[in-house]
Each structure stands twice: as structure tokens, then as C-alpha cells.
């Protein structure tokens, strides 16, 4: 790494402080307005517990899907080469910059009852919109690209000599993947999964559009916050704080993995 160079000038530091204050302010607001006395009741309410449980199921399942398909995708992006990547890469990046609600509308148009694939699925008796599976698909749509990109970065940083060395020492492709490639990619993959999981946990737009807001089936924590905000704003703050705590936990894990190694 290059040396840090000259310290930032005072004006830049002042502006930076404003930025930091702006980023911290909402968290302070949440903590200040939280009805701490009612927190226990809100957390124990059936709707909150349902949303909490469902959020864990949806984001964890979505992360598992993101790994199963995002790992090969990242591998291909890094090692595929060829002209196909000129098309594949933007397709993978698009969900990251797309407004999530558009993703949800797109999922409806594709997998909804009258969607291009959904109509065909409906004939087989498979209905995805407004189901937990639908919520999982919506979350996967936004978390898979994060996992794939992290894996791609890992593969790009991986010295191919290690895989060659493994092959020259009698290792099959499967053994090399298990004992060499995956362990060497470990930190990158873990970071990708943590980011993907956090993104899936926070998914709102695509979920409410494609899966709706049904308590116990598709109402994850962010959707619960949205609903509570209209009926019981204090409770919305309490549930929001849960999400802050979870996000902070992910950040701590990530920080160790990404920046704490040195």
C-alpha cells in the first residue's frame, strides 16, 4: 500500500464531519425516539416474532441460493473469458443498480400468474407470487449479484499456480476445489455471503411488489416496519432498531474479514 500522504485540509475535514453527522443522525433519532418501556411488548408481539422468523428464513435461504448459483457465476465471470462476458457482466450488475421495485415488477411479469414463465408454472400448479418462496426469490434477485461479484473478485486474486500445483500432486478437480480453491477463497466468499445476507435481510421493494405483505408468509422485518409506521410508529422504531443491531453485527464480521486481516 502507498504511504498515506498529506493529511486532509481543515475544510475537507469540516465537510467530512457534516457527512458523518448526516449518516449518524438517523441512528441517533431512532435511539432517542425509541419507546424503551414498550420495547419488550413490541418484540414479543406475534407480528414481530412472525416477521423476525420469516426474515431469518427468507434471507438465509436466499443466501444459500445465492451461494449455490452465485459461486459458479462468479467463477465463470473470472475464468470464463470470451465475448459472452460482455453480455453476462451487465446482466449480473444490473440488479445492483436497478430500483428494487422494478425488480419486483419484472419478477411479476416473468413469474406472476400471467408471466412468461409463471403462466407455464401455473399450469403445473406452481404459484410463486404472494408466497414465502416468492419472497425468497425476490431476496435472491438482489443478493445473488453481490455473492457472484465477491466470488469473482476472489478468483481474480487467486494465484492459479495453486490449482496447478494441486493437479500436479494428484488432486482431482473436486478435491482441488474442496481443499485448495474454496479455502483460499474463504474470506472473499464469506464477505460476499455476509453482504448478500444483509442485502436479502433488508429487501423491501422487490418483495412487497412480487410477494406482497402477508403476515407470517411474506411480511419480513422491513415490511413489518413499513406497516407499523402507519399504525404504531413507536413500534416501527423498535423493529427498526432490531435491523440496526443485525446490520451492525454483519458489519463487525465483515470488518474483521475485509479490513482486519492486516
Amino acid at each position, binding site marked *: 500500500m502507498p504511504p498515506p500522504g498529506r493529511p486532509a485540509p481543515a475544510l475537507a475535514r469540516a465537510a467530512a464531519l457534516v457527512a458523518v453527522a448526516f449518516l449518524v443522525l438517523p441512528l441517533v433519532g431512532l435511539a432517542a425516539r425509541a419507546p424503551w418501556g414498550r420495547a419488550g411488548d413490541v418484540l414479543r408481539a406475534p407480528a414481530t416474532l412472525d416477521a423476525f422468523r420469516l426474515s431469518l428464513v427468507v434471507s438465509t435461504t436466499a443466501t444459500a441460493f445465492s451461494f449455490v448459483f452465485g459461486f459458479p457465476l462468479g467463477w465463470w465471470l473470472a475464468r470464463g473469458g470470451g465475448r459472452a462476458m460482455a453480455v453476462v457482466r451487465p446482466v449480473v450488475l444490473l440488479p445492483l443498480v436497478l430500483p428494487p421495485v422494478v425488480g419486483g415488477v419484472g419478477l411479476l411479469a416473468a413469474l406472476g400468474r400471467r408471466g412468461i414463465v409463471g403462466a407455464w408454472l401455473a399450469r403445473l400448479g406452481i404459484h410463486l407470487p404472494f408466497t414465502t418462496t416468492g419472497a425468497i426469490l425476490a431476496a435472491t434477485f438482489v443478493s445473488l449479484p453481490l455473492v457472484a461479484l465477491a466470488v469473482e473478485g476472489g478468483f481474480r486474486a487467486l*494465484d492459479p*499456480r*495453486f490449482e*496447478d*500445483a*494441486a*493437479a*500436479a*500432486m*494428484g*488432486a*482431482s478437480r473436486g*478435491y482441488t476445489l474442496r*481443499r*485448495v480453491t474454496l*479455502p*483460499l477463497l*474463504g474470506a472473499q466468499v464469506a464477505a460476499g455471503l455476509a453482504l448478500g445476507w444483509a442485502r436479502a435481510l433488508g429487501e423491501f421493494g422487490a418483495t412487497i411488489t412480487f410477494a406482497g405483505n402477508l403476515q407470517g408468509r411474506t411480511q419480513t422485518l422491513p415490511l413489518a416496519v413499513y406497516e407499523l409506521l402507519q399504525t404504531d410508529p413507536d413500534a416501527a422504531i423498535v423493529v427498526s432498531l432490531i435491523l440496526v443491531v443485525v446490520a451492525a453485527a454483519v458489519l463487525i464480521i465483515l470488518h474483521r474479514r475485509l479490513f482486519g486481516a492486516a
Partner: protein
Amino acid sequence: MSFDARVRLRRGPLHLDVALTAAAGETCAIVGPNGAGKSTLLAVAAGLVRPDAGRVALDGVVLDQVDVDDSGRVVRPPVHVPPRARPIGVVFQDLALFPHLSAAENAAFPLRARGTPAAEARARALAALDHFGVLARADARPGALSGGEAQRVALARALIAQPRLLLLDEPLAALDRPARARIRALLRDVLGAFEGVAVLITHDPRDAEALADRLIVLEDGVVTQSGAIDDVMSAPKGAFLRQMITADASGDRYPDTGHARSGHQSTEPGDSAVAG
């Protein structure tokens, strides 16, 4: 029992066209300037790179065979034995020890990859590390090893599965001078006792003289001189080899000349355990 390779290969600017033969128990050194194709030739022997044309055989078993007609078209289905199915041991340039595995796990890797049970593989790995004088470092990760220690672990790993062909890519280049002398003496013992064919890439004529029976000079992808080591060194033909020997004799690159030529003994106590 021998290694026999005729290899033609185009890779970017490199046009490799080499024939190489070595008998069992022999060490064949390849010297040549950067980009001459030395490492590529080793990669072909390991099966990591497939030749455009030619034949590679070890102990009479064909590892690669690509027959082409005059226009370079492949005339029959090529034979290619993948690296994992070749009885080879490799010490890579910069070693390529697995950074996430301990020294013992690195040494055991070729056995584990071939299905040896963990306990047996570990026992044999520890014995190999002991043989190379690094048993005390068995549980250290490669990042914590000195250059000489890492080199010994790499040698243990390359030899543990009893290969018939040992490939060494600049095994001394990364070491400082004292470690270099010690590992050179160690390698001399290892290669002296090795019953298969050893192919060694080096840029140092002293390494070649100390370790090899035969010398091949590779320049721009073709062999410019080859033969018994003493014959080649005493009558260097090409500009490269002459330059290399002159630079060596003048002592400006390697001022400790003489150690390797003094013969077999190591002056380092740490290496006495490694009798051939």
C-alpha cells in the same frame, strides 16, 4: 526406465521445439535466458500445458502424443494423461506451498489427494519433514517458514508420493546465499539417491555443475547445446552459456564460488541428517 520428450509448442512469441531424453537416476539441467521456454517445457512434462505436436513418455508409458502432418493438422486423436495421473513430483518456482495448510498438511497433500487415509498420510508427511530436517516446523504455515525451510517442505511434498519424474523449477533462485549453499548440498543428496528422472531448471551454472549429470542449453525455444555436464561446461558454444560462465568465474554475481565445486559435503550441521 527413462524420460523421453519431443515437444513442439507455440505460445505467444515462444516457439518451443525441443527433444529431451534422460535415463532413470539421471538429473538433467536446463539452462537458458528468460523466455527461452524452460518453464513451459516443465509444464508440458507435468501435463499442465499440452504440446501442439510431439510425444512425451516416461518409463515407456505415453503421457502425451500429438501426431501432426506437414501442415500441422492433428492426424489422430491425441493422447493426454492429465497431471493428476502422472507419477510426477514438482517443486514450482516460488514453491507454491498452499498458504492455508501447515507444513505437514502440505507434505501430506499428494498422499491425501490420492486417497491415503489421513493418519497414515500425516505419519508419512512427518517422516518426510524429519528426513529434510524440518520436523520442528510441521505445524507452521508456509508464511511463517524461512526460505530454506519452505524449500525443504516443498521438496518433501514433491517426493512423498515416490514420483518417477521429479521436476524442479529454479529451486534455489529465491534463497539467500547461505541457505542456497545448504539447499544445494541437500538437493545433491536427494538427487543422488533419487531413482527416477530429475529435470532441473536453473540459471546458475554452479547449480547445474553441482547437481546435474547432463546439461541442456535452451535458447529461443530450441536446444543450442546438450551433453554430459562436464563436456558442455568445458566447451560452451552459445553466447548465453559463455556469458553465464564468465559472469560466474569473475565472481561479480556469486562471490562465494567454489563451495559447490568443492564437492559433496555440506558445511552446515543442519544438513547432516539428510544422507542419501
